[in-house]
Each structure stands twice: as structure tokens, then as C-alpha cells.
């Protein structure tokens, strides 16, 4: 197992957010986390990256407990991709991707760092606006920039927090295709917190469905996305169709609890 989470709990002051989380990510696997708002998806991702510190439980990265690893060591292994690029002050695409080299470089960027940045820009097809301001490009392009930063970081596990929620359907699909391509090409392992159940099922090797800070169901998409599970986690009546080995999930109406 690439990454293993055992009995992890996390709470803000005394409000429990995550309870008894156990899950595992295999090498080269795409795992999606779904669940209603407030079910703990983003918190789970932040705990894995030690942005938040879980109170109990352990997270093993290649059999090593990440609590024993230094911040920089974790930064070389785990790449965090936030939902959007929030900037107050101007910064170019190139500079943003160069930030991914932080775990590797000192104050000054070297030839090698710049090459890694250029390579990442090329892989995501965004070299044409390398010197544009990140606030001037579209949401889909911004998402690619953030992915490029994680690539420049040379992390082998990517943690994505709702990468598609600000995007139109074409850009949603494009971003997911890029992730799939990167997994195949670079042997990355990926955890994605995501709201869209259809994207979550189509691109995932494994799905974790959460409800109120606990894992409600886990397994391959067809096993997790059943009308029964969806009604119990989301309180939404739905139709799930199987066609050509693809899963189509159509939410119909909220049900009264």
C-alpha cells in the first residue's frame, strides 16, 4: 500500500469532524472521496497532508508514519492541490509553478528548478501563458496551473480538493482526463475529494463515501453508488444506470428525513 490511514480521528476544539477513518491507497490508484457538504472530505485531505493534525490514529506513507517525517520530507512526497488559486497580489503562472520547487530549492531558483517548471507547464499544455498573471486566466487554466505546481513538486501522491467545482463541464472532463493521463504516465497515486458523482465514478478505481465524518461505504464505483447508499448519505432519491460498463447516476429529488 502506498498510503494507509488507520483509525484516524480529528476534531476542531471539541467538535468531532472525522471519526475512525481507515482507508488505503494503492500505487497508481485514483481514489475519489464523495459525501455531502460537511461530511469531512476536505478535512480528511488536509489531515493526510498534515496541514491539520489528527488527534489519534496513524497515517503511513510507504509503511512510515508521517508523524515521524519532517515537514519538508512530506512536502516532497505529497502534493496538495487546492480548489482554486486565491491571490491578492499579482503573480505569474511561471512563479506559481516554481513555488512547487519550494521543498527542493533554497532562496534562488536553479537551472534544474526552472527545467522542472517548464516540463510541468508543457505536460499540462499551459506554456503559452507562462508569463501571464494567474488572475487573468480562466478557472480551467488556473486548475491546470495548480496541477502543474504539484507536478513540479515531484510528489508521487496528489491530494486534490474539489478540483472541478468551479469549472464548466468541458473543463471538468479535461481536468479529470489530465489527472488520468498523469497517473498513467508518471505512476502517481491520487486522492480526489469531489462533488460530482458521475465524475467520481467514471475516473475512480476506488470510491470512499463519507457521511458525518465517518466512512459510510468503500469499494469500486458500482458497489458504492447504489440508490440505497445515495439516499442514506445524501437523502436524495436517484436512478443509477449501468450501460457499457459505465455508471450513470441521476439524482431525482431530496427525500424528507
Amino acid at each position, binding site marked *: 500500500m502506498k498510503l494507509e490511514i488507520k483509525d484516524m480521528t480529528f476534531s476542531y476544539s471539541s467538535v468531532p469532524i472525522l471519526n475512525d477513518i481507515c482507508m488505503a491507497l494503492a500505487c497508481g490508484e485514483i481514489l475519489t472521496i464523495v459525501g455531502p457538504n460537511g461530511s469531512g472530505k476536505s478535512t480528511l485531505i488536509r489531515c493526510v497532508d498534515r496541514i491539520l493534525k489528527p488527534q489519534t490514529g496513524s497515517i503511513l506513507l510507504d509503511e512510515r508514519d508521517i508523524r515521524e517525517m519532517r515537514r519538508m520530507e512530506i512536502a516532497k512526497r505529497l502534493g496538495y492541490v487546492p480548489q482554486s488559486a486565491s491571490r491578492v497580489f*499579482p*503573480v505569474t503562472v511561471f512563479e506559481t509553478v516554481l513555488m512547487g520547487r519550494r521543498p527542493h530549492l533554497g532562496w534562488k531558483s536553479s537551472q534544474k528548478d526552472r527545467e522542472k517548471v517548464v516540463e510541468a507547464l508543457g505536460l499540462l499544455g499551459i506554456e503559452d501563458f507562462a508569463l501571464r498573471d494567474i488572475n487573468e486566466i480562466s478557472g480551467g487554466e488556473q486548475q491546470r496551473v495548480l496541477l502543474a505546481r504539484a507536478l513540479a513538486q515531484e510528489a508521487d501522491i496528489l491530494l486534490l480538493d474539489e478540483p472541478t467545482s468551479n469549472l464548466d463541464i468541458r473543463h471538468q472532463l479535461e481536468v479529470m482526463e489530465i489527472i488520468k493521463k498523469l497517473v498513467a504516465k508518471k505512476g502517481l497515486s491520487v486522492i480526489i475529494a469531489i462533488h460530482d458523482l458521475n465524475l467520481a465514478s467514471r475516473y475512480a478505481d476506488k470510491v470512499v463515501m463519507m457521511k458525518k465524518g465517518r466512512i459510510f461505504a468503500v469499494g469500486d464505483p458500482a458497489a458504492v453508488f447504489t440508490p440505497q447508499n445515495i439516499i442514506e448519505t445524501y437523502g436524495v432519491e436517484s436512478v443509477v444506470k449501468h450501460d457499457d460498463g459505465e455508471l450513470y447516476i441521476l439524482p431525482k429529488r431530496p427525500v424528507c428525513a
Partner: protein
Amino acid sequence: MAADGRQRDAQVEEKYLNVTGKKVSFILILPPLILLTLGIATSLGSADITMGEAYTALLHKFFPDYFRSNWLAETCVWDLRLPRILMGVLAGAGLGISGGVIQGVLRNPLASPYTLGISSGAGFGASLAILAGAGLGGGQYLVIGNAFAFSLISAFIIIGLASQKGATPETMILAGIAMTCLFSSATTVLQYFGEADAVKEAVFWMVGDLGRMSWNKLFMVFMALVICLPLLLFKAWDLNIMGAGDETAESLGVSVKRTRLEMMVVSALLVASIVCFTGTIGFIGLVAPHIVRMVIGGDNRFLLPASGLVGAIMLLVADTVARRIVAPVILPVGTLTAFLGVPLFLYLIMKKRREYF
């Protein structure tokens, strides 16, 4: 295909290096510009000295064999004008850099070195000394010591409160506003009971003035800069990353809370040690970083040094005008920083298509 890709890659990198080169040249142009302005400023004053004489008097000190100077020029330059002018350069540099740092740390374009309550703290400390005659130190250092102590008290209360609450920019800004109000009210109370002349003195202390400088004072500010600047500049890269959000910065290996608090403490020390000598000169710390951002962008590795240099020029020019505009009366420089800076600033805002806020 592969060769094509490589060529493209090289082009992207070259474009980046070009832009970086331009930023470096912008920074390299500024020091000679400061030296030139410094020479002009030195030659201006109530005694008639030409620029040639001013430069000769300057160089005479370093190379007495090569440059012969007269007594008048030497006294004017070295004893009267240079301490004041150099203080302008150092204070402007310190305010410019710490303005850039604090805007970056708080991720807020409206922040300035005074967001940490330093101006009102210093104002209160100085008023206490001027109006009530109470405070730390004695003689001319009564006001200075008081201003220094109270600006740090204000800053450290804010930093301390914020560190209890996770050190988010929002907490710091709100705590800063609260402390500013508190100290301003306290100052007003002091002024209400003060003598008219003393109140006037206190008010003009707060406006900021470069008069009554000496080599001793200059040396102290210089040491503060020598200690603080490397600490701030060294963190410029982490400051860039913190601009991308706390989570992102943490995941890239920056300990956000610690870095933020450290940079705040260092900036507070730097600004307090300037302000206690000069009074709370406004505008430079807010605007110098913005002017630089409009010219060379927001990368703090270039922004911070450039803000310092631009701040130095701005304050130097403002002070020279303040000395000469209604000569022989010398205005406090704080009255002119905004008068001169605002037109330039507004021009840049209107001219630039990109928006920053």
C-alpha cells in the same frame, strides 16, 4: 517532435529569464539614482553650495588627498545636511520594505507598517513624553525611548493576541485596528489636558520630521536595518508561497504561523526603531510597495528590495522639497510625502490596465 518540444521549452525559460532580468535591472538602476538625488539634496539649503562643491565635500572625507574642500561646504554637508538626508534614505528604505512585508504577510493591499498599531503606539508614547514629561530615558531620548517602547507594546499585544488565535491575517488586522483606536483615544485625552504649545509639538511629532538628526541616531537606525533586513529578505520566497494560501504553503513545507509571527516581530522592531526618531511618516510604507508591484510585479524576492529603494527615493525627494519649498521655513516631511506621492500613485493606478485589488 521531441526537438520541437525542447525548443519550445527553451523559449519559455528564456522568456522567464528575460522578465527576471528586467526586474534586476530596475533594482540596479535605483541605487545610482539615490546617489544622484542625495548629491542634489546635499547641495540645496540656506547656504549656497553648488552640486560640485557638495560632491567634493562628500568625497573629501574619503579621499582627502584628491578632493580639496572648503570649510563652509564641509560643515554644511557633513554636520548639517547629511545626517538628515541619510536618515531620510534609511527611514524610507525601512518603511518601504516593511510595508511590502506586512502587505504580503497579511495578504492585504491596504496594510502598511502602521497596521500593527505602531503609529498610534508611538504617538501615544511621544505625547506622554512631550505633554506629561513622563517616560523612559531622559533629555532628547525621553521622547525617542517612549515612542519606541509604546510602539513595541502596541505591536506585541497585537502579535501576541493573534498568535493565540492561530495568527490569521484577519485577527491581526482587527487587533491592529483595536489597538490603534485605544492608543489614539489615550493620546487625545493627553492632548485635551495639555498646554497649547506642547500639543502642537506632539501633533507635529506624529506628522513625522527629519529635523534634529545626528550621526548617533543615524547609526542606531542603520544598525536596526542591518539586523532586520537580512531576516526579512531571506523569507521573501516563503512570503510568495504564503500568498497562495495557508494550506498550500503548509503543504509546500512552510510553517506558516511561525513565519508570519517572525516576520511581524522583525518588521515591528525595524519600524519602531525608525519611527521613534522620525515620527510617524505616513504614506511611504503603504505606497512604495504598490508602485514597485505595478512596475515589476509581485514576486517578493524582487519586490522587497525594490520597495526599500523606492521608499528611500520618495522620502529623500519629499524631504528635500519640504526643506526648500517655503524656505527658510522647513516643513515636517510628513506633510509632503502624500502631496508628492499621491499624484504619482494615482497616475500609475490609472495608467495600468491590470487591477490588483
